[in-house]
């Protein structure tokens, strides 16, 4: 059992805005700070572009977690896309709950272009948290069972 848990490699999709978070991820790269490889990045111009259907699609297609990263409040390259994204995320969280998807599987956070270290921490935490939750389908089954 424990054996299985540690060998579980979560699949996580990360939606990163082009201007801050994606640049923050690049910063972690130039600093060569390692982090777990489980988060696959899908770049959008702004976190405001993240349509809830993208998140649903990711879970449907086998993601165990989704993380949305935006510019800090007030720093969005497009002024206020991240506020919309944060609003939408609150709605989405409720929706996910209804679907029986645990809260920890979908996260929203802020990473600026300078915050390479924060990016590494956020990603590392997310991977650990989803790893602890186990694969998505399993936990869903556990719920319904």
């Amino acid at each position, binding site marked *: 059992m424990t054996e299985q848990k540690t060998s579980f490699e979560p699949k996580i999709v990360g939606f990163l805005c082009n201007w801050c978070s994606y640049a923050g991820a*690049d910063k972690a790269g130039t600093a060569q700070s390692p982090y777990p490889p489980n988060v696959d990045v*899908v770049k959008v111009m702004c976190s*405001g572009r*993240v*349509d809830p259907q*993208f998140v649903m699609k990711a879970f449907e*297609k086998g993601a165990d977690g989704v993380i949305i990263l935006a510019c800090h409040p007030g720093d969005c390259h*497009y002024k206020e*896309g991240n506020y919309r994204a944060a609003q939408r995320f609150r709605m989405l969280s409720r929706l996910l709950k209804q679907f029986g998807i645990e809260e920890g599987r979908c996260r929203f956070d802020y990473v600026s272009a300078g915050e390479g270290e924060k990016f590494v921490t956020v990603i590392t935490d997310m991977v650990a948290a989803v790893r602890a939750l186990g694969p998505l389908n399993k936990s869903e089954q556990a719920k319904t069972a």
Partner: protein
Amino acid sequence: MKIGIYFCKCGTNISDKIDSEKVKTGLPSGPSELSFKTIDFMCSEDGKESLEKDIKENGIERVVVSACSPRDHENTFMRVLSKAGINPYLMQMVNVREQVAWVTEDNEKATEKAGRYINAAICRVELHDPLEKKEIDICPDVLVIGAGPAGLKTALSIAESGRKVVIVEKTPVIGGMPVRFEELFPNMECGPCMLEPVLGDILHGEHAENIELLTIAEVVDVVGSYGNFTVTVKQKPRYSDIHKCIGCGECIEPCPVSAKNIYNCNLSERKAISFPFAGALPNAPFIDEAICLKKKGYDCSLCKDACPVEDAIIFDDAERTIVRNVGAIVVAIGSDSYDCTKIPDLGYGKIPDVHTGVEFERILASNGPTYGEIQTSQGAAPKSVAIIHCVGSLDKEHKEYCSGICCQYAFKFNHLIENKLPGAKIHHFYKELVIPGKEDFHLYNHAKENPNSTFIRYNNIETLAVSEKEGKKIITNSADGSSVEADMVILCPAVVPTVESGKLGTILEATHDKFGFFEELHGRMDSTQSKIKGVYLAGTCQSPMDIQKTMNQGMAAAGYILSGLVAGRKLEIKPITAVVEEDRCSGCRVCVLVCPYKAVAYDTEKGSSVVNEVLCQGCGTCVAACPVGAIKGNHFTNNEILAEIEGVLS
């Protein structure tokens, strides 16, 4: 479809971690024909050449570049695609250096991750649409609103480059606040003299023919966007022809009526026909229709009879509506002073000889109400003057911010009082002292060295009170029970946005910050751009500042315009914008609400929302917000992003 996948080794930066052979064998088998090539340094001249050659020779239709961050070289490779004869948007870049090779400890995992990313890029690039940059014709002319130092500096620079400028000034006089100030900090230069060269050039300099100056005018409507605005201006009659009038002033003396002169802060009177103050430019008087007898229907023409020039006075002058086409707009409407009656204990408006800084400037001015004599309401020279700094500034109950200029003009006043009233006592009541800059400390030091100047610190303006006793003003501080006597009190009110700032903002669709100043695009990087493309901000309408910063912002606005809008050059519109599919739009207008750039408008005739491509910055917020999926985000379409999601997960 033939897709070329180009894997850059980046020396050993990528190839040390990611096994390109394994990536190659792991490529998906889909409908598209895939070709996989490795290149050593793709961004080098050789690398770009081999990329171009391979695309051409092998009839590649779509390109996946697996290399460094697109933030580094996306543009580089897009240009290679163009050179190779395919649309540059038919490429997807995979960031395997910064976001895989450099951050993944395990080689195998890094290789797997690169494989997933390349797979996703293949899925996505299959769906890419070729996109074209659009070009639109622009009008290089410029509208400047406000003829203070900021607006005039911009206008002159633009005119000097040979462009047409329309200046709209609300009052009959140009030069803004400083032309009404006798001397200026930090170097005690004469205000009107310092500005004279700029004013002179505006009115009759070498490039004056490029400048259309509309005084007593107001912008009432603006439509269009960057490159092509149509502006409607209403100009009130001046009743004098600024070109014919020789400025002799013969008309003034015979005029039988007068009223308070707002250009002297109501401290003196002005005839129905007169100049705002001596030396005001343009050098032609104007008629105040509110009091002019002729305008009231009486048979008076005393001014016209006295005028030596035919038709210089025009009684039947009328309001004009002027429409101009411009490519850019500069807002330079300046600021106001905080209403001191909001701190009633200071006695402003109730107790005589309690003045604001601007009023005191007029008192100091040789063309002011007392011709530069500092006098109390009793006509006496004050023996002591109290200057209260920070009136309403740095105060959560009033204005939270520091107005930045008040300390400096307070010490300027110190200097001028010393000169005009030798031996007079000067009491500075201050909350904080703020004197930044390499020149500005001189006046402060000077005040400190003056044995007649005292500095009294207070904590909270609410504990200060000004009362009057036998002509003396008594300033008490209830916090410590202290009191000081003075013959005159000068308040240094916070610099605040003008009352019209809101109205003009609405016309321009430009936003304001929480204090009501025009909001800049970015506080550090772009304080001269508003959040509306093509609308620039200069001077104290954006934030309190001194003349130096004001002039710099005026120049910055000119710089943006001269580099961005070039006569004969078209405006390039990047194709990553939103597009509404008109027949799917339900008319809910959510998109209009969410767009931060006011780029979406609802077209009632079409019955659909429409995106203005010039204004759209391509954030995609409306795309995600549209409940019926009627908006397509070019290059980030739902299908493209969904394909990428599936690609990384499969």
